[in-house]
């Protein structure tokens, strides 16, 4: 038996023995997701046990080095673990911006001290992170951000405002882009700072979205003290870190987005609502829309596969991530439009129990943000035309 087969056998046995039955059920809604952190209320004992057992193995962050609380797995082993978890429908034990964004940034740019301070609590699900990038006047034009961090000798003093901070009201720490050199040009003079959301002077206000939910906040900083050792990468070179993470974030697109539609086929869903005639969906136009969408999704997945292969062969993903971001989000919006067409009146219900509190309509509305957050579709097309097509500037 090869080492990888051996690993698979052990992993399978361990998961069988340690993954609670309750944690093998599909998420009913986003609310079933375990975010972790100081304020986290576990939905059940099973959720807590599952997170702790996985954290003990280092498998909440399978590929991070062991000395920082990760699993130290090779990409091949991590894939085996993912496959084995999928085999039994095991839920992700815990995840938040610490895993998705800060961890990769620290591993690439962080000092040894910062890695040792921050990575293990992420892996154990003890600290939940949020991301402070956008500002009221710095959205698509992120680099024009104005939040200031003034050097006060033994600390920085941070003043300013962030917006669209995901779950800032529930997070424990924030990684934040701040201007440390107001005289430098736009992209220079920005630093990547870390601080505790319980620090004096931090306040948050949830923003109610068109979906009726509030996954984002406005976040205010009023004379917040930040340690000088809490800068990731070089001072004034925070844009490099941010750019790396934006690319990293866009690369993650391509997997199936979470939500009600995950793993669900639209054809049978539509059949439940519009009925069938001669074995085909009764609404021919809807049927054609679904087929066209699914064909486009299949083509998108084929491209994702190709770009990933090229990236693994060392050609890098680079600006191709903008292609993935554009099509991934636009397709997801189309998927929700078709879903709403299929659901009819039932999709419009906003509060009923049978729709899990208007889940369909809320997710449909939430999907509209996909092509805005993380770089709008228009910004992506600009990146493609300049960096991939070499079209000239005006």
């Amino acid at each position, binding site marked *: 038996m090869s080492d990888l087969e051996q690993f698979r056998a052990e992993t399978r046995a361990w998961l069988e023995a340690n993954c609670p039955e309750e944690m093998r059920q599909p998420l009913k809604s986003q609310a079933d997701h375990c975010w972790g952190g100081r304020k986290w209320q576990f939905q059940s004992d099973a959720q807590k046990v599952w997170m702790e057992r996985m954290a003990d193995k280092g498998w909440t962050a399978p590929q991070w080095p062991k000395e920082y609380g990760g699993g130290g797995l090779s990409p091949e082993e991590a894939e085996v673990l993912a496959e084995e978890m999928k085999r039994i429908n095991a839920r992700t034990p815990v995840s938040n911006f610490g895993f998705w964004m800060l961890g990769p940034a620290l591993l690439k740019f962080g000092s040894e001290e910062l890695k040792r301070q921050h990575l293990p609590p992420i892996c154990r699900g003890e600290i939940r992170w949020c991301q402070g990038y956008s500002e009221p006047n710095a959205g698509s034009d992120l680099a024009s951000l104005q939040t200031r961090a003034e050097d006060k000798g033994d600390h920085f003093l941070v003043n300013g405002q962030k917006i669209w901070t995901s779950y800032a009201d529930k997070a424990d720490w924030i990684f934040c882009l701040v201007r440390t050199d107001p005289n430098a040009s736009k992209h220079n003079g920005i630093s990547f700072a870390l601080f505790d959301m319980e620090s004096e002077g931090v306040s948050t206000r949830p923003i109610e979205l068109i979906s009726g939910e509030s996954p984002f906040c406005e976040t205010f900083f009023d004379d917040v003290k930040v340690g000088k050792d809490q800068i990731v990468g070089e001072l004034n070179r925070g844009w490099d870190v941010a750019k790396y993470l934006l690319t990293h974030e866009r690369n993650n697109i391509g997997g199936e987005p979470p939500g009600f539609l995950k793993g669900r086929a639209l054809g049978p869903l539509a059949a439940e609502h519009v009925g069938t005639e001669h074995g085909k969906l009764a609404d021919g136009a809807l049927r054609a829309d679904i087929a066209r969408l699914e*064909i486009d999704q299949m083509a998108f997945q*084929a491209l994702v596969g190709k770009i990933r292969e090229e990236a693994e062969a060392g050609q890098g993903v680079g600006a191709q991530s903008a292609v993935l971001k554009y099509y991934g989000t636009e397709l997801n919006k189309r998927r929700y439009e078709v879903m709403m067409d299929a659901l009819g009146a039932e999709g419009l219900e906003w509060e009923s129990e049978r729709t899990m509190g208007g889940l369909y309509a809320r997710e449909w509305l939430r999907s509209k943000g996909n092509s805005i957050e993380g770089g709008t579709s228009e910004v992506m097309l600009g990146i493609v035309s300049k960096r991939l097509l070499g*079209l000239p500037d005006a």
Partner: protein
Amino acid sequence: MKLNDEQQMLQDSVARLMADKGPVSHLRELRDRNDEKGYDEPLWHAMVESGLTGILVPEEHGGIGFGLVGAGLVAREIGRNLSVTPFLSTAVLGATALATGGSVKQQQKWLPAIAEGSVITALAVDDGAKHRPEAIKTEAKAAGDGVTLNGGKLLVLDAHVADLLLVAARQGESTALFLVDPKAEGVTIERNRMVDDRNAARVTLDNVAAEPMADGAAALAAALRAGRAVLAAELSGLAREAFERTLQYLKERKQFGRLIGTFQALQHRAALLMGEVSMSDALAMQALDACDRNADDAEVQVLAAKAKAARVALLAGQEAVQMHGGIGMTDEFDIGFFLKRARAGGETLGDANYCADRFAVLRDY
């Protein structure tokens, strides 16, 4: 899917061959002199010499048995150069049908001949203006050892130069391919020059004697699948070339005192087109690979790939003409050829709507 070393070498050599010996200018010349055969004979001979005519012919019959990915790589370059050859009709459709459903005798007779380029075959499927192989009207009636065919066929590629017709006909409940000698009594072949300057004939069959295959139903299914997959690759290559020519034009053409490629409206259209072309190409190659691996979802993938490629090629042709402006509308300029071929290639063996319909059927809705 990633190309292996052999496939990579094939791609490189075919790219050179098509660019050198089968460029767009040849299509124009064939058209302008209303060539009797209607295809690029010197190019076809060069393809024979390179073994490309036997790309899907098994080795025991004198071919190189390279698989559909290989055929797709050839088709992609054919698409880029709008090369005019009987590659699809003979090396793909004829070879696949015979290798899949031919009797030993039929295979021995025809497959080596296809590989060595001494025959051209034509597949006759459609009995109406639209491709609907599930409802074939042409009838096959038992007569002695063979059958007699009655019906009419459209869009029969290369029929006027063919040495063998493979005709889809209904016999009772089943639909199968039958072998017909184009010179047999009762066969009328009306050569039609199509919008893309290729040859597709109308064929009439009036009590024509035909030869059944060992498994004519399997032959038809295999030929349709292979043909659609290869067409998806050709259309993707065509779309890529139309896009690249247009991109180049955006970097050269000046209006209002600046390069038109600086205008955001055109930049975004070009970016969108690049994405669509890349997706069409990736899906086509994935579908060809699925066929070679005999994957469970090969049929679904091929239908998706053909539907996507047909739409994207047409989009690329339209966008190319639009972004070239007035010059794109002139016959003197080559870009219009891409639009024309996109329309004809998209229609062949099932357009995007047909493929999407079958795709939905296979996905149970």
